[in-house]
């Protein structure tokens, strides 16, 4: 008996994998049904649904990049402290000193790549008309995922706390100040007042809520850190789960009738 067979017949192996090696047709079916990770997929699938020239694999790549970001992001969180005192220098140390500093590069380039692939995925879905019935709602979930992906990227942009970061966020969050009714410099904010006192001022408007202050400062860093590392990823994970579930329930990848 070879070593491989010995391992595969051991009690330990069998306790982990509930099926023999997927070498024949029966076990290739069984593996899909009994493995937690694989049960995301159906057992069999139409050829066009997995053709690279049809799906461009962009949804899958986006998902993979999301996982890469989660993994490298957790590793970065072990080093990085979101305070005015340390944020910049922790990132600098990641670049110059830390052994696994390349995690920061992978995290940043992965984030850029994810923004691009999520656009391309949407582009493909549109061009193949895959948003048409019965997949309308999955398109809607997709649009939410698109927004959240951009927000993930945007909130992460601030964390290195360098010149690039705070000014990009300043430019971006100035928009909140101009929110109609809810921004301190937006049209109609004067209408929201009580007894002559404005309810919306630059200390209570949408920008203030986003930044936790009038300017990009320590409170902003804290807010963006929580949004970036906890709040948005949790929501995105949930939506991705629903997205995948819907792909299957809506009849798998779209194809001509």
């Amino acid at each position, binding site marked *: 008996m070879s070593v491989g067979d010995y391992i595969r017949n051991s009690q330990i192996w069998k306790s982990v994998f509930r099926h023999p090696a997927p070498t024949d047709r029966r076990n290739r079916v069984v593996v899909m049904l009994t493995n937690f990770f694989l049960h995301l997929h159906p057992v069999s699938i139409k050829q066009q649904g997995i053709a690279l020239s049809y799906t461009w694999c962009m949804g899958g790549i986006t998902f993979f990049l999301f996982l890469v970001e989660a993994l490298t992001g957790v590793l970065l969180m072990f080093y990085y402290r979101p305070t005015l005192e340390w944020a910049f220098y922790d990132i600098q140390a990641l670049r110059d000193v830390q052994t696994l500093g390349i995690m920061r590069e992978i995290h940043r380039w992965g984030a850029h790549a994810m923004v691009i692939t999520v656009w391309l995925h949407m582009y493909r879905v*549109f061009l193949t*008309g895959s948003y048409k019935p019965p997949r309308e709602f999955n398109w809607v979930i997709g649009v939410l995922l698109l927004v959240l992906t951009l927000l993930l990227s945007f909130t992460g942009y601030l964390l290195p706390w360098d*010149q690039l970061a705070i000014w990009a966020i300043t430019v971006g969050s100035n928009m909140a100040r101009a929110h109609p009714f809810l921004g301190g410099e937006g*049209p109609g904010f004067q209408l929201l007042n009580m007894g002559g006192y404005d309810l919306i001022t630059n200390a209570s408007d949408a920008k203030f809520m986003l930044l936790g202050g009038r300017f990009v400062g320590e409170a902003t860093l804290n807010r963006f850190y929580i949004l970036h590392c906890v709040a948005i990823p949790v929501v995105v994970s949930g939506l991705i789960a629903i997205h995948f579930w819907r792909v299957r329930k809506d009849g798998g990848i779209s*194809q001509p009738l």
Partner: protein
Amino acid sequence: MNPHPDLTSGVLHGLGWYYLILFVMNLLWTVRSFKVDGEFKKSTPILGGMPVATVWAVLTSILLMLSAAHFTGGSSPEKFMIRLPEWFKNPVDAYFANPVIYFAGSVGLYWAMIRFREWWVQDTVAYTMLQLSLIFMGLSLSDYDFRQIVGKPDNVPIVAMLFIVSFLTWIYFKRAVDNDNRIAQGRPLFEQENNEKVLVWPDLVYIELICMVVLTAVLVFWGIALEAPLEEPASSVKTPNPSKAPWYFLGLQEMLVYFDPWLAGVVLPGIILGGLIAVPYIDFNKGGNGYYSFKERSFAISTFLFGFFPLWIALIVLGTFLRGPNWNFYGIYELWDVHKVVAANNVNLSEFFWNSPLFSWMYGGLPKGDSFMGSPTLTLLLRESPGILLTLGYFALLPPLLGLTVLRKYFVKMGILRFLVFSNLALWMAVLPIKMLLRWAFSLKYIVGIPEWFFNI
């Protein structure tokens, strides 16, 4: 410091590798051409009986020589000869340093992409365009200012994205043209052929595995090759010029040139998202579901492509590569000179209106203070009434008007609610190009300008 430091040996070596890669690419292509285009049979008359592959062979050898020249020229870069001449760069800058021509050009490209789709989906045509753009990139990289902006680590993904998007768009049109022909001839669609059921293990799981390995390799390589940017520590007193939002929001930042933040930063993004969400509910066309096609959904596809290319990708490219200090427009080979002055003398619609001969004679110019019925508010409204009426008419009158005339077909099929949503979204989409045109043609600043209420359109 010399504002245009010259080529360095590092750059020359980099370009040497660049041309070496192009050489390998074209070597393979020459072989392919020899096999596919035929040796001597299918030759074109221009080539006088020579195989098409000859052209590629010549290009291939030129690229090899270019590569060798760059590798050997590295020792004395200041004497290196192969670079873009000024007589080429100056007109290109004069051309690019102009938002009007840039936008018109991107719309023209968009139109040509659709109009000539059957021509450019051919392998040789597409490959030629790819090579031309790569060689253009290579030559341009010999320019200092071009390198500064294109070579910035954060901008590299955008350049990559341009190539990837072009490639995927090519795939789309190739498949769509093919399917359109199949439908016209009554043959089954491409997606209907070879569409047997296969087992997910192994057919899909191995694709996924290979995909993950390749992507990991790409990310690690990318991470080693390019260091993530880290500038000086944040300082709330030193404002960088220009201050740019992250690159994927530069399309929105570009809209700030034409609209106030409440529109460019809040309302328009909201409309974009709302519009995207509404897409499946307003597209009543049942055709083209689950396969690539153009003719069956030409309206939907053209609209989407218009939003995606001229109004999104092109504006991101503009914001990233062509907007410099003070948000002025700079050519791709132009130095980002902080002191560049661009005259901006924009006028509001109300000024046009009330200062026109007729109304300045009737009313005596712009209504001011509380000159109208003793009320400042009413005076403001009167002053801005032309713009307010125009805007209201645009959003309230145009949809029913269109529905009864040009778009009657859609109106009938969609029903009233769906049609109103659709036509308003379409009108919103046109808002940016309209405002751009008005700005360029008449230096128009605001259609409705009530800075007192932060309400400017």
